[in-house]
C-alpha cells in the first residue's frame, strides 16, 4: 500500500476547500464541464503547486494577456509537452533544494492537458516523463475532441460521435473507432497511481486528485469533462451528463493503485446507454445497429474493469 494514503482522511461534502485556485473572469463557455473539473482538481491540490498547462481550452480561457485566472505559479509552453515541462520544473526544484537555494518544502508539480494533448499529440512526452519517474501529477481533462480548434475528432472521441472531422454522411456514421483507453496506457507504465473521475462525483474526484499528489512518483488522473459547445448539450446539463455517463457504465470510475484496479463506484443497475447518448446532439444521428453495438461494447468494457478489480 501507499504509505502517504494512510494519513489522508479524504474530503467530504462539508470539508471542501473554500479557496479558489482558478479565479473567476475566465473565458470558458457557459456550463463548461472542463472548467468545473479543473476547478475541483485545483481545489483539491491547494496553493502549494506549480502548474504546467498544455495548449488547449483551459490554457486559452485562463490566460489572455494581460490577465490571468491563475493564483498559483503557472506555465504554458506548447501543446504536447506539459509533462516534460513539468519534469524540468521537478528536476530544477530537486537540485535547487539540494543546493539550499530554495526551501525543502514539498511543492506538487502538476501538468494539465486535454484529451488531445494527453492521448494524441503529447503521449510520447507523458510516456517519457512517467517512465523516468518524476514526482508529478498529470491531469487529463477529457472532453473527447479538439474543442479549442472547433470540435475535431481525437483518439478519445467516442464511437459514433459527430465532430467537425467525423461528420455523419451517406458513407459514415461519425467516429468509426472506439475511444482510446488512455488510463490503461498510463497504467501500463507501472506508475503508482492512476484514476478516472467525473465532476458529478466531486468528492471522489477531489480525493483522487489529492491522492495523486500525495503519492511519490508519477500519478495520472483522467477526468471526464462535458463540453456543451462541442457535444451539443444544454449548458445546464453538464453535471447531469457527467452523472449519467457513470450510471450507464460508459465511463467507469476506478483507481489503479500500484497496478491493482479498484472500482470506485459499482453500477449494479445500469441505465441504458441511450439515456446518456440522447442528451447530446453529437450522437443524435446514430441508428439502432450502432446503439446496440455501443451498449454491447460498454458492457464488455465495464465487465473487464470489474474483472480486473476482482484480481488479486
Amino acid at each position, binding site marked *: 500500500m501507499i504509505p502517504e494514503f494512510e494519513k489522508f482522511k479524504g474530503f467530504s461534502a462539508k470539508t471542501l476547500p473554500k479557496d479558489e485556485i482558478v479565479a473567476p*473572469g475566465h473565458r470558458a463557455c457557459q456550463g463548461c464541464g472542463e472548467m468545473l473539473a479543473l476547478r475541483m482538481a485545483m481545489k483539491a491540490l491547494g496553493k502549494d503547486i506549480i502548474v504546467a498547462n498544455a495548449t488547449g481550452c483551459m490554457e486559452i480561457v485562463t490566460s489572455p494577456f*494581460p490577465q490571468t485566472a491563475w493564483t498559483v505559479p503557472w506555465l504554458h509552453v506548447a501543446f504536447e509537452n506539459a509533462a516534460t515541462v513539468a519534469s524540468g520544473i521537478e528536476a530544477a526544484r530537486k537540485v535547487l533544494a539540494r543546493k539550499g537555494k530554495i526551501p525543502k518544502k514539498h511543492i506538487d508539480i502538476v501538468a494539465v492537458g486535454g484529451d488531445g494533448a494527453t492521448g494524441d499529440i503529447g503521449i510520447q512526452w507523458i510516456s517519457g516523463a512517467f517512465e523516468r519517474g518524476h514526482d508529478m501529477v498529470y491531469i487529463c481533462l477529457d472532453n473527447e475532441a479538439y474543442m479549442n480548434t472547433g470540435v475535431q475528432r481525437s483518439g478519445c472521441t467516442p464511437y459514433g460521435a459527430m465532430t467537425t472531422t467525423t461528420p455523419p454522411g451517406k458513407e459514415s456514421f461519425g467516429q468509426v473507432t472506439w475511444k482510446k483507453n488512455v488510463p490503461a496506457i498510463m497504467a501500463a507504465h507501472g506508475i503508482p497511481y492512476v484514476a478516472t473521475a467525473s465532476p458529478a462525483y466531486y468528492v471522489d474526484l477531489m480525493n483522487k486528485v489529492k491522492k495523486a499528489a500525495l503519492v511519490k512518483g508519477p500519478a495520472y488522473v483522467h477526468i471526464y469533462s462535458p463540453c456543451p459547445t462541442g457535444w451539443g448539450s444544454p449548458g445546464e446539463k*453538464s453535471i447531469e451528463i457527467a452523472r449519467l455517463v457513470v450510471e450507464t457504465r460508459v465511463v467507469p470510475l476506478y483507481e489503479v493503485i500500484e497496478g491493482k484496479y479498484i472500482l470506485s463506484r459499482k453500477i449494479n443497475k445500469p441505465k441504458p446507454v441511450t439515456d446518456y447518448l440522447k442528451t447530446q446532439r453529437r450522437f443524435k444521428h446514430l441508428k439502432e445497429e450502432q446503439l446496440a453495438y455501443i451498449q454491447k461494447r460498454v458492457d464488455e468494457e465495464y465487465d473487464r474493469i470489474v474483472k480486473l478489480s476482482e484480481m488479486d
Partner: protein
Amino acid sequence: MATSDAIIGWKTLPFGCHITEPGSSAKFRTGDWRSQRPVLDKEKCIKCGMCWIFCPDMAYSQTKEGYYEANMEYCKGCGICANECPKGAIQMVEEEV
C-alpha cells in the same frame, strides 16, 4: 474591457510577457454574457452548497446567513446550479434587456 489594459508599448510590456498579478482575470466581467440569471428561493434552500461546488464560473460564495449567492459580475447564466439544486430552490429567469 480587458484588452484596453493590453494597449501598452514594448518598453512597458512586463518582463518576458509574464503576468505577475495572480487571479487578475477577476477584473474581467463575464456577467454580460448572461441571458438568464439564477434566483434563489430562500424558503426552499437548505444551504447544501451544490450550487457553489457545481458552478464553473466561481460565481457563488456563502453569505453570513449561510446561503449561497451568485455574483452577477461573473455568472454566465449556464443554469447548472438550478439544474443541480436538490430542492428546486433556484429558478433561472430571463434577463431583461
